[in-house]
């Protein structure tokens, strides 16, 4: 078993008002928020010294229940206060956020933490769709699409995405995460969310339910994973989250937690104007799934003892808590326990005390539970985001041509100045093409052309060439030279020097990886000349660079120098 701390960061001092009041930010004192932030940060970061495995924060909007709508900021604050334990979010409301931005922040947090970050996603609650004015019928589709984009951001070097809700191009995020794959967690209560998590091998968290409910949802995940997606999740795929309060005696714990839990329910009221359930956010299937159980989230009038019995809050002395949790962990079969120690407006000192008691007297007796399959499950869970190599089999491969070219020089490109046929030494003939990089591009910005030379992992810019005479015949023997020089003809740089036969010997120069490559990196700056010359042996027919079958292509990089104010 691994242990985490996680809280709804509840605004702690709402006035005693009835449900007829909507808790708008009229009741929010930012100074109180400041103090609450510092209290929670201390409570979360102390867990590292207490031996916890991690700390999680989450995101809600427009509610006193949770006052960290940008929870990634809070995660960063925890990261800077810790050095060992994991720090995660569970999670970001990805259907309502820009997914690229989410991925960028996750990658940043992973780098900031040195690879300790756990990403998390949630679909969001209806009030958030109301305030963002988003169609709730699209929530699942938005989540699916957003996650796909986040996944691509975190795993692919460069991609485009043309979705229904987001269209992005040329995305290559900086930084990328340290962890490959970056682990993900999500709460999954509905049948659809459980299936989504199983499909993507995301750790699934259950909260606010009795042991049997946890067990049923984890079992549904296991069944879906095995039967539909061909993998077998272990304990480490499952997270049980519970409100918890530990004190020296059962009576003391219950006394302290009772009012705090009442406060928690007061903040759970709907904060927006519409009183009706929002259509489209749930499904009849999920209602049917939940109907099989004898209770859902308890209402505010549920007796405290009943909520304690069912584990809505685990509350007692260390012995009681340890025994209750052991039964829960074994019954529901999860491998991560997430304790929500800061219940409602429970006092800071009591939360600290509760955590110390838990760490000292409860954690040690539970550590050995549900760990047997953990290693095996981890290997499964990791597989989802592993980056496959070009072949994936580790076999030796030919070094590819330079893949990132964004421009191709040809005899018809705007830089082409002229073709030429020149006698070189009275006998040989040099034919080819001359290009000039203009002073300004069409949009008024200067640019340079870079012909890319070989590196360890690529061969350099592809270079294709064919030069024929008037009859369509190629020279038998010729030399090819590509060089770059400044406007005065000085500072010559040779990019390629080779034999024409090597070009002629390639059956199809356009075939993948078939072309020859530039030999040496050169930069053709503004007004520089690029010259492609084929020098033919004496006696050969005169070449015709303007003939229909003559051509050249150099795949290069056009580097725009954006000079903007």
């Amino acid at each position: 078993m691994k242990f985490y701390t996680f809280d709804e960061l509840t605004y702690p001092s709402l006035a005693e008002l009835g449900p007829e009041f909507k808790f708008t930010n009229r009741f929010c004192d930012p100074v109180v928020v400041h103090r609450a932030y510092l209290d929670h940060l201390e409570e979360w970061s102390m867990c590292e010294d207490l031996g916890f495995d991690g700390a999680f924060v989450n995101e809600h909007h427009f509610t006193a229940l949770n006052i960290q709508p940008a929870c990634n900021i809070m995660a960063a604050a925890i990261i800077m206060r810790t050095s060992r334990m994991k720090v995660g979010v569970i999670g970001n409301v990805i259907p309502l956020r820009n997914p690229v931005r989410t991925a960028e922040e996750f990658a940043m947090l992973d780098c900031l933490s040195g690879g300790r970050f756990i990403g998390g996603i949630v679909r969001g609650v209806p009030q958030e769709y109301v305030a963002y004015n988003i169609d709730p019928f699209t929530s699942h589709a938005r989540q699916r699409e957003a996650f796909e984009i986040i996944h691509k951001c975190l795993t692919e070097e460069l991609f485009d995405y043309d979705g229904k809700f987001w269209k992005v191009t040329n995305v290559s995020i900086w930084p990328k995460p340290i962890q490959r794959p970056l682990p993900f967690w999500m709460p999954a209560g509905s049948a659809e969310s459980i299936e989504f998590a199983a499909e993507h091998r995301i750790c699934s968290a259950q909260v606010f339910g009795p042991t049997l409910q946890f067990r049923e949802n984890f079992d549904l995940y296991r069944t879906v994973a095995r039967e539909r997606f061909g993998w077998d999740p272990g304990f480490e795929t499952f997270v049980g989250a519970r409100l918890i309060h530990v004190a020296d005696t059962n009576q003391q714990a219950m006394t302290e937690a009772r009012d705090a839990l009442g406060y928690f329910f007061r903040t759970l009221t709907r904060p927006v104007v519409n009183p009706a359930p929002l259509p489209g956010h749930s499904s009849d299937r999920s209602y049917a799934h939940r109907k099989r159980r004898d209770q859902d989230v308890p209402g505010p009038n549920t007796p405290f003892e009943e909520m304690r019995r069912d584990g809505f809050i685990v509350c007692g002395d260390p012995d009681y808590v340890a025994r209750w949790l052991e039964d829960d962990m074994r019954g529901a079969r999860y491998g991560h326990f997430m304790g929500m120690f800061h219940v409602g407006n429970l006092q800071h000192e009591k939360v600290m005390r509760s955590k110390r008691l838990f760490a000292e007297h409860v954690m040690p007796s539970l550590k050995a539970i549900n760990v047997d399959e953990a290693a095996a499950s981890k290997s499964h869970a990791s597989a989802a985001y592993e980056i496959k190599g070009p072949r994936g089999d580790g076999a030796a491969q030919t070094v590819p041509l330079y893949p990132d070219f964004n421009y191709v020089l040809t005899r018809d490109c705007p830089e082409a100045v002229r073709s030429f046929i020149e006698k070189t030494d009275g006998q040989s003939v040099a034919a080819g093409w001359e290009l000039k990089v203009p002073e300004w591009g069409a949009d008024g910005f200067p640019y340079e052309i870079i012909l890319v030379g070989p590196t360890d992992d690529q061969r350099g810019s592809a270079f294709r060439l064919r030069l024929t005479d008037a009859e369509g015949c190629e020279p038998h023997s010729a030399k090819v030279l590509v060089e770059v020089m400044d406007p005065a003809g000085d500072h010559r740089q040779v990019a390629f020097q080779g034999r024409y036969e090597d070009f002629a010997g390639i059956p199809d120069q356009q075939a993948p990886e078939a072309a020859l490559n530039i030999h040496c990196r050169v930069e053709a700056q503004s007004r520089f000349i690029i010259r492609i010359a084929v020098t033919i042996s004496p006696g050969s027919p005169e070449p015709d660079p303007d003939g229909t079958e003559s051509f050249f292509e150099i795949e290069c990089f056009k580097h725009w120098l954006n000079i903007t104010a």
Partner: protein
Amino acid sequence: MGTGYAGYASVFNRKIATIGQLTIRYLEGGYGIPLLYVHGLEGWGSWDSVHITFALSNHVYAPLLPGWQDGRIPSFIKSPADYAKLMRDFLEVAGIKTATLVGYSIGGWIALYLAAEFPDLVERLVIVDSLGLCVGDARPAAVGKMDQEAFGEAVFARRGPVLVPHDFNPDFGGVFEDLRNSPDFKRYWRGKEILVNWIGANLEDSELGQVARRIKAKTLIVWGRQDGLAPCEHGGFLADCIPQATLVLLADAGHTPMKDKRETFQGFVHQFLSNSDAFGPDRIVEA
């Protein structure tokens, strides 16, 4: 114009329209082209999920049929066709030239007359478990003789406890209740009493089929397969009558598909209201 604005759809106003000596109370909310919702036996409640569904893509007008609150139906309203004329007047007073029309149960009966008699007013039509049809052997329920138990069996398909949202926060979990003990049941029962006192126990309008054949508007018909008041054969008959109609039959739903299969019902209606072109003619969907 886009659709799906949950924020706009969640905000509504209570208003009053005056037509001659008559005042009509109505709810108004949402954004988009006008939509008139003619309620069913349940009468008029708050701005409910079903209103929000309509309002995700429309500007909704949901009047309370005069007499449906206190049982004192104005004397000049002797039939659903008279209510249809009143709804036409309501649209005129509201300044609406064309609207999407949604009618449920007794409201469906009224909406069929409205769509047939005033075709220029009705751009699209949604009919849900309409009363009033007369279809061979598939006789409507003899509501005048029903006790509460029989009525409950006829109206609601669900049995035993059902999950209903919490009052304190409908977004977050819920509780299990027996629907028969719910305010919903009481509203439907009361509506039935008003109906019987008004037009008697005979729910068959022999002219309604011919009326439906005159409807030009693109139409979505939604029916609960287990409707014990207006059997689902009535939905099939109606789909045969209306040239541009799509019929959706909801399994495990009675006369209250928006309660029995809430999300499925709302999903179909939202889809139709957002893009009715996606619904072809003669399509019968079993859900």
